[in-house]
């Protein structure tokens, strides 16, 4: 260890103040401080300091991401191989085959993300003369985890560059950004390259070919073609008890267990609710992620889902009423749009028909939590302390609203079935406003106290 230290001191000699490469000191410091916590002592203020620093905090988040990442690698490989080899389910793929295939698919994404992002971070650190902040360690890992596995590497590189330059450095670097950088990258790609970022074909490697289908559950729900299992009373609702399609989709065998464990197609590493929950436990136990935001987000999502379920059930009951009264047959509801139009329904009644047959509205609210990446987003993205609300009360409001809007966008706008990305970005923008009003409450309390003191002075 002593030897390593001495070697390092030798290497960094030209970078010391007054030497030739002084300007590039942040670059060498980034490597040096990664190996050794420096020997700096306190010069002012408290003479002793806690052991926690930003490196430790960020590494903890990376640790929390690892289970989801490892699972994501396996799942990416397994989802592809089981279809390509014509097997019955993902479990028939040998574990190592799936994992290696997944690693081959995912590792290039991670490498491109880190290389492009860290290069920009280093350049800015040298240019601005500050140390390299550790924030990108997390962002750089998050970005590949939330992209579809087949994203061309140059698109990923462009998205990363956009996120770091426009999302972060333009606002002044780490700690100053308004939007979550990882989601900025995804949003950029989503709107710049929609063909590669949404639709039915891209969520499994080579998903657009005939042999492999790249559909997600949310996509199927949005188009009303989901034929997998649904739990609870919703299973017998109008939306889910329709006639089976002539050819079963790859989602036909999926049940709640698969959704929870994450054996479903999706972005690289967001599918497993279990792995996300393990990550959440790490974040909450280490106090690195705010439990208020996580709990708020889940509660908000459940509440919004329940509200929509209520409307779905109303629609379902309305249709069943129509069928019972003999005005229309259930068969016609599913297959004969003309017969539905012939009923001449208008206003609320027409809406009820729509609601009753909409799969997203009728999908059980608690099952909404395990499909799509709402859980991943709430645990790993919403809790980014820089772009989140900063006050305790604000964090509750922020979390709950993310859950609310996440499900709202998912259900209302089938073009963006994964609404959580947009919900978090929206609330990122509103977080300072939320904080402003929370802090203003404290300010008003203080002003009220001052006025009371003044009034007392006048009467005295």
């Amino acid at each position, binding site marked *: 260890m002593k030897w390593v230290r001495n070697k390092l001191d030798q290497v960094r000699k030209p970078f010391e103040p007054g030497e030739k490469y002084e300007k590039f000191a942040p670059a060498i410091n980034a490597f040096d401080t990664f190996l050794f916590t420096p020997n700096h*002592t306190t010069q002012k203020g408290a003479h002793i300091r806690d052991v926690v620093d930003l490196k430790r905090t960020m590494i903890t988040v990376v640790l929390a991401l690892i289970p989801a990442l490892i699972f994501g690698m396996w799942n990416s490989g397994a989802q592809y191989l089981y279809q390509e080899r014509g097997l019955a389910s993902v479990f028939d793929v040998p574990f190592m085959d799936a994992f290696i295939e997944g690693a081959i698919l995912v590792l290039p994404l991670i490498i491109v993300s880190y290389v492009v992002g860290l290069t920009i971070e280093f350049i800015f650190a040298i240019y601005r003369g500050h140390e390299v902040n550790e924030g990108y360690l997390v962002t750089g890992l998050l970005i590949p985890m939330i992209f579809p596995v087949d994203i061309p590497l140059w698109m990923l590189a462009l998205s990363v560059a956009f996120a770091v330059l426009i999302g972060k450095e333009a606002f002044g670097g780490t700690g100053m950004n308004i939007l979550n950088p990882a989601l900025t990258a995804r949003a950029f790609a989503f709107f710049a390259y929609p063909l590669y970022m949404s639709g039915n074909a891209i969520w499994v490697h080579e998903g657009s070919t005939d042999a492999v289908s790249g559909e997600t559950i949310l996509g199927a729900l949005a188009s009303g073609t989901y034929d997998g299992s649904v739990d609870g009373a919703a299973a017998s609702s109008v939306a889910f008890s329709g006639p089976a399609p002539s050819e079963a989709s790859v989602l036909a065998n999926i049940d709640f267990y698969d959704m929870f464990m994450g054996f479903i197609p999706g972005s690289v590493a967001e599918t497993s609710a279990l792995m996300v929950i393990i990550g959440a436990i790490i974040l909450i136990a280490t106090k690195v992620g705010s439990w208020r935001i996580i709990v708020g987000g889940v509660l908000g999502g459940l509440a919004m889902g329940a509200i929509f379920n209520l409307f779905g059930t109303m629609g379902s009951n309305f249709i069943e009423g129509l069928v019972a009264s003999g005005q229309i047959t259930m068969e016609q509801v599913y297959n004969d749009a003309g017969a539905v139009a012939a009923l001449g329904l208008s206003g609320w009644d027409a809406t009820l028909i729509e609601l009753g047959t909409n799969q997203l509205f009728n999908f059980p609210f608690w099952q909404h939590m395990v499909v799509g990446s709402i859980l991943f987003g709430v645990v790993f993205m919403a809790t980014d302390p820089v772009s989140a609300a900063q006050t305790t009360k604000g964090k509750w409001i922020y979390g709950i609203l993310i859950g609310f809007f996440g499900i709202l966008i998912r259900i209302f706008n089938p073009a963006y079935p994964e609404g959580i990305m947009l919900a978090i970005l929206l609330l990122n923008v509103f977080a300072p406003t939320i904080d402003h009003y929370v802090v203003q409450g404290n300010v008003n309390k203080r002003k009220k106290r001052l006025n009371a003191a003044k009034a007392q002075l006048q009467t005295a």
Partner: protein
Amino acid sequence: MSKDIRVRRGLDLKLEGDADKTIVDAPRSAVYAIKPSDFHAVVPKLILKEGAKVKAGEPVFYSKYDEPVKFVSPVSGTISEIVRGAKRRILEVRIQADATSEYVDHGTIDLATADAATIKTTLLESGCWPFIIQRPYDIVANSEDTPKSIFISAYTTAPLAGDVDFITADKKEAFQAGVDALSKLTSGKVHVGVGTDSALGTINNAVVHKVKGPHPAGNVGIQIHKIDPINFGEKVWVVGAEDVATIGNLFLTGKFLAQRTVALVGSEVSPANRKYYRTIIGANVDTLVKDVNTTETRIISGDVLTGDKLDNGQFLNYYSNTLTLIPEGNEYALLGWLPFTRNNIPSISGTSLSWLKGGKSKVDTNLNGEERALVVTGEMEEVLPMDIYPMQLIKACMAGDIEKMENLGIYEVAPEDFALVDYINTSKLEAQEVIRLGLDLMITEVG
């Protein structure tokens, strides 16, 4: 009517090296010094020159912007040296002490009949006035003010700090006299914060508050905030507990006896020497600790969170009851950022397992990281038991936004209240310095 204070948020750092509850006399120092830097924002104007003879209690300099406030020699002797720094700023006025002190006599005053003006004049003339600190701003009180109330904290929570409750235990009579005198100077009341089983619980002429909770519950600022928070335009005075007894002694004996009881603490003090020492304000640290290797050990006059770094042969601070010696931490730590490692350092972070480890810790002065942008939120609130948003206030101070600072409660805080923020924050932000600069800005802009 007493109002008990229960503080929940905070952090008690259990460190190695606390002092035994025994008081011994420290050897008499050959040279004493008064340091104008101990009196924040005071601009000193010298009265005496180098070589002048002084009695104990004779003014040496006064405050340029508040002339009645005088600063006196703690002992009798000769002014041996006036140490100046950059721009001829006075750093120390050193006094070569006589073998025994000869005091200026102000005559005893019967506190039962004395009026406020007499008491004030005596305090100003005797040199006891600098013991009175004004909040907001944490500066020496202005001699023309009448405060809303006066607060005394006799409850110690700072890590390893000398327990003022123990120090004042045998000075109860003087303490009572001090409280009697101070109670005439305020339009409101004198509030005394004490521990749950303190001997000072029976003090008259004051409202006694029983305080309980982790550090910073003992900080007088926290107690003011809980009892009677400071509003814009209001002034509150605070006096250290031992200083109240010194003020009391002034009226009982007519002399300014500049006694200071100092706890010698810290892991670098040999256990046999960890005691309370009776000494005099401004004594040389050499009388308590000898020839410390300052590259390996740090001498701190005050506690580890708020004290001042001293060198060998320098002098004790005017106000503090503690002298701490801890190891310097100028060493590298291999992969020191790994979570759940280095658990010997107490921490509120979940990335450390220090809560599993009981007992006392030995800490050094390593920064344990590097300064970074403010990223983590919610941690400062955990150690600041006030109805104040610390991070927002710090950011307002950094930006110099006076209106925002006022709105967020700058008048209610002092740097020492943010000492634990210094300690715990992930970004290694110098919160005490930021708050001090913010307060200084308020002094120049608002006054």
